[in-house]
């Protein structure tokens, strides 16, 4: 069983699994002295695998949310490191700030040169603070926009990686016009003539996620979520209660499969069993494979029908979203 960078910390709903794992470990220690225990060990391991499978095939929406928010979940920098160790980071909005919550770079994915734009939550405490826990400021969206324009100028496809609770709600963020920064990205990203593929890798939180999510193809990792408002916010407004987060998760249809069924996204990308944080390399490989496939299909479209067809494809896709009588 491949693992992420560190031993995965179990989530609440994984407790039975964790208990079993501890028992297996204890048994393994005794195995050298008591070879007769081998049969027990094998049974327990089989039990573990079957419990795990059943656990992960019956996840509630709130369990997906927990995995999507897992503190060890791979972030944009993790994926970039796996995809292209020589990727070149592009910093700053040119106007006063380099928002650490938004990472941009020139990345080689297989034989494709790509601009990657992704949110970053931060791992260590200090980094988390620098990244505002993954909540970009207007300057972060403007940095992204600068790279979007760079991509358009040089014909570079764009990949966006989305894992954010939302745009940062702060004093200076409002003063610097967070709303306008998001709106301008929606406006401009809708019309670029290079392929854009967006992947929700963790939390897709509201307008702050969509600001880099106007793409020809939108894909989601299996356990990621995408919603118009945080389930906590939804519960507090509609149920006027903080205990109803699970209900809100369920009502909003925010899991990858549900959103696929609503026709908003194009693919759900399988994660390593237990979630992406159990196997960074595996998650990175799955994600890359899906991204490259979509990028190449869009490149084909461009070659056959011209770059404007790529833009029309994206605008037509979003034109159809909505349900009305």
């Amino acid at each position, binding site marked *: 069983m491949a693992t992420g960078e560190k031993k995965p910390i179990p989530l609440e709903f994984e407790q039975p699994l964790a208990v079993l794992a501890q028992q297996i470990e204890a048994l393994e220690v005794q195995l050298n002295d008591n070879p007769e225990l081998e049969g027990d060990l094998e049974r327990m391991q089989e039990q573990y695998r079957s419990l795990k499978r059943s656990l992960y095939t019956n996840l509630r929406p709130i369990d997906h949310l927990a995995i999507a928010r897992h503190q060890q979940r791979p972030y944009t920098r993790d994926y970039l490191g796996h995809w292209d160790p020589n990727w070149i980071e592009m910093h700053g909005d040119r106007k006063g700030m380099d928002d650490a919550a938004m990472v941009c770079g020139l990345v080689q994915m297989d034989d494709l040169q790509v601009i990657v734009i992704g949110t970053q939550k931060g791992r260590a405490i200090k980094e988390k603070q620098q990244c505002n826990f993954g909540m970009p400021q207007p300057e972060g969206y403007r940095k992204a926009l600068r790279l979007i324009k760079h991509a358009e100028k040089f014909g570079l496809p764009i990949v966006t990686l989305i894992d954010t609770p939302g745009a940062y*709600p702060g004093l200076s963020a409002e003063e610097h016009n967070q709303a306008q920064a998001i709106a301008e990205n929606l406006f401009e990203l809708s019309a670029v003539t290079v392929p854009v593929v967006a992947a929700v890798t963790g939390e897709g939180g509201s307008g702050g996620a969509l600001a880099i999510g106007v793409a020809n193809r939108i894909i989601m990792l299996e356990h990621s979520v995408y*919603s118009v408002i945080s389930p906590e916010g939804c519960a507090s407004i509609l149920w006027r209660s903080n205990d109803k987060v699970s209900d809100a998760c369920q009502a909003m249809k925010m899991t990858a499969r549900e959103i696929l069924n609503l026709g908003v996204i194009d693919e759900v990308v399988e994660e390593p069993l237990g979630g992406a944080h159990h196997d960074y390399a595996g998650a990175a490989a799955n994600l890359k494979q899906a991204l490259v496939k979509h990028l190449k299909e869009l490149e084909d479209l461009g070659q056959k029908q011209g770059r404007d067809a790529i833009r029309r494809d994206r605008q037509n896709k979003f034109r159809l979203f909505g*349900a009305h009588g």
Partner: protein
Amino acid sequence: MDLKEWFANRKNRKENKEVAKQPMPDEEYCALWTQCFQCREYLYTRDLRQNQLVCPKCHYHFRCGALDRIEYTADAGSFKEIDAEMQSSDPLNFIDTEAYPRRQEEASRKSGLKEAVITGVCTIGGNPCAIGCMDFGHFGGSMGSVVGEKVTRITEYAKQNHLPLIIVSSSGGARMQEGILSLMQLAKTSSALKDFSEAGGLYISLLSEPTFGGVTASFAMLGDVIIAEPGARIGFAGRRVIEQTIRQKLPSDFQTAEYLLKHGQVDMVVDRGQLKDRLASLIAFHARARTRSRAQAV
């Protein structure tokens, strides 16, 4: 986006404490008399309406519904509605403490409207234009699929017919009950405005009390010209969310139209009484320029 918050804020809002001797009723104006939300004066409702819902004493701009807005802004009798019948469906089968279709019915009963935006064509000071007016009184002005679709369609209509476009925003944000589909309306409307803009169309966005969340973060902030009404509260995140996040008190005029002007976010703050003339001037100015520059288009 956060309606509960909006209501909570409204209560705490810059009340004129000295004048405030009477208990405060809801802001809705009742049949005959209306109490001013700011100066607490009781106003004869007919006078208030004749003054375009602006308090004659303290100049407070009352919230203005879509139909009132059209009456005050469009030339008399010029407005023709488009997509009047469009109504929401319930794509998520959304139920919280009540089912979404029931909430829709309630909203319509209270507002008398089918949805939170009315769109159509009219003339303003003789200038033909396409117009959309949101109504906070319907479902907190929230944007679901229908609001997004109607705004998109009126934008496309304006593009096809070479009309300037005016959208009056008043919204708590995206409509939660349509989930991710509501969110996608931000992109849909912005994408339509991009096409409209590239075709050379003039888009004037009017921000009125209150404009928040997904509406601000899409079409409301994309005007070639952005006008705000005096005192209107406009922002992305709600005041309370921000206070909880940054754990410090916010300036008292935070997120008001005047604060936005100071921070370079709107072109101008215009009194409701002057709004129609200002819109007419802006449209006419750009139309005359277009006529001149057409002569030299290559």
